[in-house]
Each structure stands twice: as structure tokens, then as C-alpha cells.
């Protein structure tokens, strides 16, 4: 399935992601990493669960409001439900042991030049690329 090359929208989105990372550090002193924020609200919840719920609620409501005010969000899932569930399970285990994902390591950690985040980001980018190659061009699922 082809998707349209959208450098400007993607750049604008990236800058907003960066802006939220800056603001979360400035106000709450926290890394804007989705793995860490989500893990803190899964029982046993962390003591500072309240701001995490607020952040997650905002993250869900933001795009909904954008749609309500006439914005468009291209969205297509060329993956079957069983494979989404399998991928989700593996992602959950992986980000727990890897202590972060694209937002925490790839953006916030890389921006701080953290050696762990650089190593983690290189690793998951390579494995994601390899997996997509295997799924699409070898297994042809």
C-alpha cells in the first residue's frame, strides 16, 4: 500500500512532539516517553499516576479535537488483528526490558545524547527494518 510523502506535515508533527517533550521536562521534570508514562499507570501504579492519566487523556483527546475541527489524519492498518495482537505483545515485553521506545529513547534520550538511548534506538530501528523486510519480502504475509 503506497502512502503519500508528507515532509511538511511530518516535520510539523515532529516539532510538536519535541515541544511536548520540552514542556513536560520544564513543568513536570519528566521524560516524555510513552513506555514510562503508560507503565506507571498499570497496577501496581506509581505514586505519581495522576499526571500520567492526564497526559494520556490529552494525547487521546488532542487528535479527536483536531478531527472535530475539520482536520484530517490519514490512517490505514495493513495488518491483520492477530498480527497486531502478536506485535503488541512483543512490543510490550520489549519496551519493558528495553526501558523505553521511540518517544523516550528515540527523541528524549537521543536529544540528551544518552549512550543507552542511542544504543537502544539504533537497535530497534535496525530490527524494525529487518522485520518489515522479512514480513513483506520473504514471508510475504
Amino acid at each position: 500500500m503506497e502512502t503519500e510523502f508528507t515532509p511538511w506535515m511530518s516535520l510539523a508533527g515532529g516539532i510538536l512532539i519535541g515541544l511536548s517533550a520540552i514542556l513536560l521536562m520544564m513543568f513536570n521534570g519528566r521524560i516524555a516517553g510513552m513506555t514510562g508514562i503508560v507503565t506507571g499507570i498499570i497496577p501496581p501504579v506509581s505514586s505519581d499516576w495522576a499526571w500520567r492519566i492526564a497526559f494520556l487523556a490529552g494525547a487521546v483527546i488532542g487528535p479527536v479535537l483536531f478531527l472535530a475541527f475539520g482536520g484530517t489524519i490519514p490512517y490505514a492498518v495493513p495488518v491483520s488483528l492477530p498480527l497486531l495482537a502478536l506485535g503488541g505483545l512483543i512490543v510490550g515485553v520489549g519496551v519493558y526490558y528495553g526501558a523505553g521506545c521511540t518517544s523516550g529513547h528515540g527523541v528524549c534520550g537521543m536529544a540528551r545524547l544518552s549512550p543507552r538511548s542511542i544504543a537502544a534506538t539504533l537497535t530497534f530501528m535496525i530490527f524494525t527494518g529487518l522485520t518489515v523486510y522479512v514480513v513483506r519480502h520473504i514471508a510475504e504475509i
Partner: protein
Amino acid sequence: MQKLIVSGLIGAVFGLGIAISGMANPAKVLNFFDVAGSWDPSLIFVMGGALITTAIGYMVVFGARRKPVFDAEFHLPINKTVDARLLGGSALFGIGWGIAGFCPGGAIPALGFGGLHVLAFVGAMVIGIVLARTLDGLRHKPAKAF
């Protein structure tokens, strides 16, 4: 209360950024990695824009403030060790991301418009985190590593 409102607004900026960038769109994410097929390089601009913005902004924040507005200190990971746990976990995350096309930060903002697909992914992801934490012996306090 102030902290919760601000956290919600920051979350909304994050979610909007993810949604318009294409990170919440598995078709686009998978195409970014499909260099040998229907390649769409857009996500370079997401990562580049987010990374440069954050790097500059962090320098400004850490230079201008000794502590955050709503907390006594900046909570920065102090662990510097690159070990098998980090690399193995990251490799697994990559495999899952490559199968599903969703990463955690891409999936959560899609919950409001993405229907059953993103629910299946996020549900399984939460089970995966719970499973890993249980296997880890429940020794780690939530979010300790973050």
C-alpha cells in the same frame, strides 16, 4: 490541579503531533521501513524535527531552570550501562513494531480514532508489559527505569 491541567495540555500537543506526523498511521510507518518496497521517507522529518527541537529545548530548560515548575527535581535516568537487557528488549520492540506498525507513542493517540485495530495492539501491549514485569519478579517499582 494546575499540574493535571498542564499535563493534559502537554499530552494533547504530543497526541496532535503524533497524529499529523504520521506516526499513528501503521501504513506510513511500515512504508518508512520498507526501503525495498513502497518506501515513504516522511518519518525522517518526524524524527529529525522532534530530535532537533527537543535537543535545543532541553538545553534552554536545563540552562534556565534549576528545577521544574511542578517538581523538586528533574527526573533523568542515571543508568549509563548498555547491557544485554537494554539491547535485547530494544530488539524485541523492533520486531513487534515491524510486525504491527504501531509503537507505544504512535498507538495511544490513535485510540480515539483508530477503532478495533489499535485497541487490539494496545491491549496486547499492556499484557506484554504486565507479563514482562511479572517475569522480572515484581522487584522493580513501576517506572523505576524511566
